């Protein structure tokens, strides 16, 4: 029997809950590329991003979410990256951002 739709929904909590999130993949990513931790959130990568100019892709936001253990949708988001490498040219902390995009895709591909 189909469930009756009463017109009510339950909103899932939006908060990032570090106690519940499994940080294993995040730790693995940071272990392989510790330089990602040097990010200061300036947004230069996102400002020059070719894909971000045409889609909602936000590299800074996606890798920050991954670091907090929020993996859902991250692989699909990273697939919007065209690997042009402009972000790497502008990063003031010298992070190999294109390498980060590849690494996140590799680690989260089986998600």
């Amino acid at each position, binding site marked *: 029997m189909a469930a009756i739709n009463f017109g009510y929904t339950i909103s899932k909590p*939006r908060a*990032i809950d*570090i106690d519940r999130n499994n940080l294993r993949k995040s730790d693995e990513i940071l272990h392989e590329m510790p330089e990602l931790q040097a990010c200061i*959130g300036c947004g230069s990568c996102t400002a020059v991003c070719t894909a971000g100019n045409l889609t909602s892709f936000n590299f800074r*936001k996606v890798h920050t*979410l991954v670091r907090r253990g929020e993996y859902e949708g991250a692989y699909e988001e990273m697939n919007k990256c065209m690997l042009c490498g402009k972000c790497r040219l502008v990063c003031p902390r010298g992070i190999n951002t294109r390498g980060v995009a590849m690494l996140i895709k590799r680690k989260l591909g089986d998600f």
Partner: protein
Amino acid sequence: MKRVIVIGGGVAGMQTALRLADDGCDPLILEKEGELGGKLRDWYVLFPTFTPASEVLAELKGRVIRRGIEVRTSAEVAAFTPHSVTLAGGETLACDAVVVATGFTLFDARIKEEYGYGIYDNVVTSADLERMFAEGRVAKSDGSRPRRIAFLHCVGSRDEKVCQSHCSRVCCITGVKQAMEMKRLFPEADVFNFYMDIRMFGPGYEEMYREAQQRCNIHFVRGRISEASPTIDGRIQIKAEDTLTGRPLKMSVDMLVLLVGMRANDSNARFAAQSGVERSPSGFLAPKSLFLDGVRSTAEGIFYAGTVTAPKSVGECVCEGYAAADAAAEYVKER
């Protein structure tokens, strides 16, 4: 010889007195506590080199003693004019000029009640943590090792809600330094720093910040903690916005360290009213000019050194000691 009274025997006051002696004046340090050293006595190691504070203090105190500079401890100043200083006991001392080096007051973290300082266990201030480092026993209140530690920047700084709109400057780098020390003591622990801005203004500070991020694996979250509350298992739950992802964030921690700011001494208001010097809106005493007269007050014969005019680092206070002494010496010679 011209007598110059230095009010306050912290790093700025001691260096001022040393330089006054070099300049051919007769300095007298008035220190309200039982010994010289000021706030530095409560600090363990100094950023960005992890140099023991006791090393710096012992050297400076040694110079004051070897130079034979007159010091009066437990001498609280009630009032002063350019040519006399009255102690709390009523005694009045004559002089030719006064250098005010009375420093700052640490912000009382209990005022930010939402963080639970003095209410929940394991909420400590940066000053408490320095004391714990110095005593060699950093642990949770039950003696166990913390597994997750959070630092909160800007407690009592840049916050109109507690009438402290100014930036205390040195807490950012102190937060980075203390996070690194905690990581060294507890390598297995996760350390999170919650910040609004990270202001690494000094030489070597930015490099230290990067080392904390990249080598020490300390997590920096841009967002101010809104509240702390106890969990059923005796931990502390904190909430903030992770502003770089635009999502609320929560976690429980074993220790919450509040990086308390520097606020102006209450005595500044009294001094300003009695001596005709001016105060800035932050409550710190206002120098005659921020550019060419940073150690001069708006009144003749009264000079400033150190954090009485604004939050400063140890090195900056020592430099101001030289400058204030030279300005005072020049003034008394022309009198």
